[in-house]
């Protein structure tokens, strides 16, 4: 932990570094994949277009494209950022003087909860913007007025589950990887015992990372569509 001397704000520098690394990787992938764009796509452009269409599909399955088109960029960036973040902690982790430096940024609840809260706040913002304050407020009394308290709880539950699901999955994966790595480093027998589960768990973690990125984007669009779309 490091305290900024000017405002007294605490930073977890490991988080900051890993966020920057993830952002840099995503940016580089996207940047170099979209150089030399052609009407007849080749190579990486195909891949990027596939991602775009994939996110477009997610949005379209939740709301009308007229409403959802503006979330396209958000969706693609979220998907790639979270996926890359999830992958970062898989190959290795670096611990310096007992402090974990290299890990998935999404294995930190602060980061995931920040993303989740941002999404929920965005959904409220666009809900009010799209439907007006009156209709937005009226949605809390549907389908039955007495469900109002539940509706309020739902909002917080959504935020919590959205952030903690991602955090929990990735963090658990890294803990297990860390334990297996400890076992693998313990000796020749430990390595023999750990090698196979390690490979299996890494493969599974890649799967989990991809699935969690997809789920996060999917739920983002679901929550936003609940607020934005007229019928739901």
């Amino acid at each position, binding site marked *: 932990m490091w305290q900024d001397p000017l405002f007294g704000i605490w930073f977890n520098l490991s988080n900051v570094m890993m966020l920057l690394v993830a952002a840099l990787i995503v940016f580089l992938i996207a940047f170099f994949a979209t150089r030399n764009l052609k009407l007849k796509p080749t190579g990486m452009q195909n891949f990027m277009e596939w991602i775009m269409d994939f996110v477009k599909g997610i949005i379209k399955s939740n709301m009308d494209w007229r409403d959802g088109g503006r979330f396209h960029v958000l969706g693609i960036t979220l998907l790639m950022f979270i996926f890359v973040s999830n992958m970062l902690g898989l190959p290795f982790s670096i611990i310096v003087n007992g402090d974990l430096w290299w890990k998935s940024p999404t294995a930190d609840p602060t*980061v995931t909860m920040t993303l989740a809260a*941002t999404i929920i706040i965005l959904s409220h913002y666009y809900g009010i913007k799209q439907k007006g304050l009156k209709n937005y407020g009226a949605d809390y009394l549907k389908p039955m007025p007495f469900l109002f308290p539940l509706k309020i709880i739902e909002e917080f539950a959504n935020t919590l589950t959205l952030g903690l699901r991602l955090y929990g999955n990735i963090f658990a994966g890294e803990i297990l990887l860390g334990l297996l790595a400890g076992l693998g480093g313990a000796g020749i027998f430990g390595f023999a015992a750990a090698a196979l589960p390690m490979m299996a768990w890494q493969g599974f973690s890649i799967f989990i990372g991809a699935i969690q990125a997809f789920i996060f984007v999917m739920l983002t669009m679901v929550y936003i569509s609940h607020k934005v779309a007229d019928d739901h």
Partner: protein
Amino acid sequence: MFFDHLVLGATGEFLNIGDIAATLIVFIALMLLLKKFAWGPLMGVMQEREDLIASEIETAENSRLESKKMLEEQRNLLKDARTQAQEIVENAKKQGEVSREEIITTARAEAGRMKDAAVLEIANERDKAISAVREEVVALSLLAATKVLEKEISEEDNRQLINETIAKAGEVQ
């Protein structure tokens, strides 16, 4: 322990606002940068392609309709041409019939006319020949009579005989 700050709520006495800010800033900056450098151009290209395909389809549809129309037109023209050709042939045939008839009629008339002319000519010639012969006969008979009757018949008788002969010749005719 490094687990301390990884567990929710374990940040203890300090809330790491810095992480929250960093996450937000990094994510938003990433999103804006990508929008400018990657997604924007890519979406542009995809939109362009979409437009291109749409316009190509429209063009194809249009040219299909146009060629269909032209085909119809050509077919009509062909049909017209065929009818016209038929008509022309028919007309020519009719015309031929008419001129044949005409030519035959003219030829027949001409032939008739020529035959009449020939008949007339023949009659003329015959008349001419007859009169010539008659004259010759008169002259000859005169000559003969003169020679035969030179001395025996008087001039009066002579004249009478001549006239008689002439009258006879006229009767013969």
